[in-house]
């Protein structure tokens, strides 16, 4: 049982929890206590230190903003108004709240607000669906499109949209880069012929890719009713992030162990068997390393692309909150930042697990 749990933890990259299990079972107490201290307690402490530093920094910035606001009122409206302003700020009046870096507790409140908002929005959506269920049935029977909810998406809806975009982009990147990488890896001539493409386009910024893609998509899909902003953003994500997989695949394929190639030569395997039975399995670890980088890059560029493409998702959420400027907007932006970070971490771990299943050298 224990060893199964440990195995599972190791697979998902949480192997550092192993000493805790040992300690709970009372095995090698001294050694495991030390390990638990180092691997679990110290990171948790560092989280608290980080929160403390953030709180102090936020307080400091808040005080500067507060002083400035009071001084400004004093300069324009006089001492009496300035005093009123000071009292109003210190009483916690939201309308006069200085706009600065939110403290950890503000962020927590922001997260709660977002969650409540999500529940409200989904309740509304559900109510709407119940209300239109009968009507939609009629419309369907009459061959009309059903009425769909077009209200504001909640934060969780935005996350789901972002994930959809990132997976579509990632799939596109994998479908383009893996076959291209194999071909490039097999042919040194093609590799040197197309090396400049890789070297030049790899460092191009996501923003430029977005503009390029929208130039093309705008024309190609001019008369289509499909969701153009989604198409533009996922294609841009794919094009930005495919390079790591392309380079890694080409590298993996061109540097297969000579022993394996000798086997293939002695057996006189045909081109097809050579590629699918020897070269490809041998380069799987490299290909997956590339795919892992691709997935994290696509999640990273997604935010910037959504922000510009006006397609719904976390990126546009951040941008709208920034433009919105409500008293808790800053806190919500920080919440989004952490959500983005955690999801990116989760995606990376997910890829790691898949890589372990797919590679021959994982044991």
């Amino acid at each position, binding site marked *: 049982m224990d060893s199964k749990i440990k195995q599972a933890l190791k697979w998902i990259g949480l192997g550092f929890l192993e000493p805790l299990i040992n300690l709970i079972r009372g095995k090698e107490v001294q050694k495991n206590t030390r390990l638990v201290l180092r691997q679990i307690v110290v990171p948790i402490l560092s989280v608290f230190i980080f929160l403390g530093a953030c709180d102090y920094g936020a307080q400091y910035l808040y005080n500067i903003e507060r002083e400035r606001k009071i001084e400004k009122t004093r300069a324009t409206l006089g001492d009496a108004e300035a005093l009123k302003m000071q009292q109003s700020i210190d009483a916690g009046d939201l309308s006069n709240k200085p706009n600065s870096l939110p403290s950890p507790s503000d962020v927590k409140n922001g997260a709660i607000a977002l969650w409540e908002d999500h529940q409200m929005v989904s309740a509304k959506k559900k109510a709407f669906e119940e209300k239109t269920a009968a009507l939609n049935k009629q419309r369907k029977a009459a061959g009309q499109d059903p009425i769909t909810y077009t209200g504001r998406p909640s934060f969780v809806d935005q996350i789901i949209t972002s994930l959809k975009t990132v997976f579509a982009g990632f799939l596109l990147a994998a479908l383009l880069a893996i076959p291209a990488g194999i071909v490039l890896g097999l042919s040194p001539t093609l590799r040197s012929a197309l090396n400049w493409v890789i070297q030049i386009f790899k460092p191009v910024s996501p923003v430029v890719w977005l503009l390029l893609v929208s130039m093309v998509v705008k024309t190609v899909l001019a008369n289509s009713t499909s969701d153009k902003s989604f198409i533009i953003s996922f294609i841009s994500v794919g094009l930005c992030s495919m390079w790591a997989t392309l380079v890694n695949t080409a590298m993996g394929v061109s540097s297969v162990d000579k022993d394996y190639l*000798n086997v293939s*030569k002695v057996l*006189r395997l045909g081109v097809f068997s050579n590629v699918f039975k*020897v070269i490809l*399995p041998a380069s799987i670890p490299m290909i997956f390393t590339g795919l892992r980088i691709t997935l994290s890059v696509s999640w990273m560029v997604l935010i910037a692309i959504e922000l510009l493409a006006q397609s719904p998702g976390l990126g546009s959420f951040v941008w709208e909150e920034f433009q919105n400027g409500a008293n808790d907007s800053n806190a919500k932006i920080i919440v989004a930042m952490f959500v983005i970070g955690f999801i990116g971490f989760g995606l990376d771990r997910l890829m790691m697990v898949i890589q372990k299943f797919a590679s021959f050298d994982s044991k």
Partner: protein
Amino acid sequence: MAAFLELRNVSKGYGSGENRVEVLKNINLSIEEGEFIAIVGFTGSGKTTLISLIAGLIEPDEGEILLKGQKINGPGPDRGVIFQNYSLLPWLSVFGNIELAVKQVFPNMSPVDRADHIAKYIEMVNLTPAIQKKPSELSGGMRQRVSVARALAMDPEVLLMDEPLSALDALTRGTLQMEIEKIWYESRKTVVLITNDVDEGILLADRVIPLTPGPGATLGTEYKIGFSRPRDKAAINADPNFKKERNDIINYLDEIGQHRSVNNGEEYVLPDLQPKYLSTKLPLI
């Protein structure tokens, strides 16, 4: 009438111009069908180059290699190779590794026959319990057995072994030597064994041929080994002829080895230096 496998004036070198190193020079060898040849030599004398030439993995610079009177042209399944480092594909099981080879050599075999064929050779090397294991789960000796089974299952004309046992411990090596002897006795394949172990050569081969040290290595005087088959390690070890053959070959190798070190000997003169006192401060220039 040409021999079964024949090497005629084969030379091979690497590099060009000043950096060119002649590895093998004027190798002449003819091997009859069903013969077991051992080529012994020093490390770095070009043994692996020789086996790669016969396997067709590299081309000779001069001369030609004939199998049954036909010039060999690239590698092929008619010459089964057992590599020093096993060269098993780590993502395939024991069965899968052999299946890949069998499928290639006998494409028309039915799946049932193929499975039987593979199982037969796995049985021959005593690996039936490990049939579905991956190479990473096997010991070195077991891996080399898979490699032997793979080469045999291809039913090649010639079996080429490139120091197949040198990566194994002495005990495993002894066991595998006897297994190779047994398998050879049953199958009577033509075998070229490359080894750095004179005992192994005497124990297994009909002829032991030393490879002189490189650069420009060539084959030396051959020694015919006349022990009756099937051979038994203990019996041969006790045989006075074994000691004689062994001493002859080792003396011969020593002789040509010394020849090398004398010819090769540039004199290295040590510079006449006195140690300095470390505490003395050197002037800054």
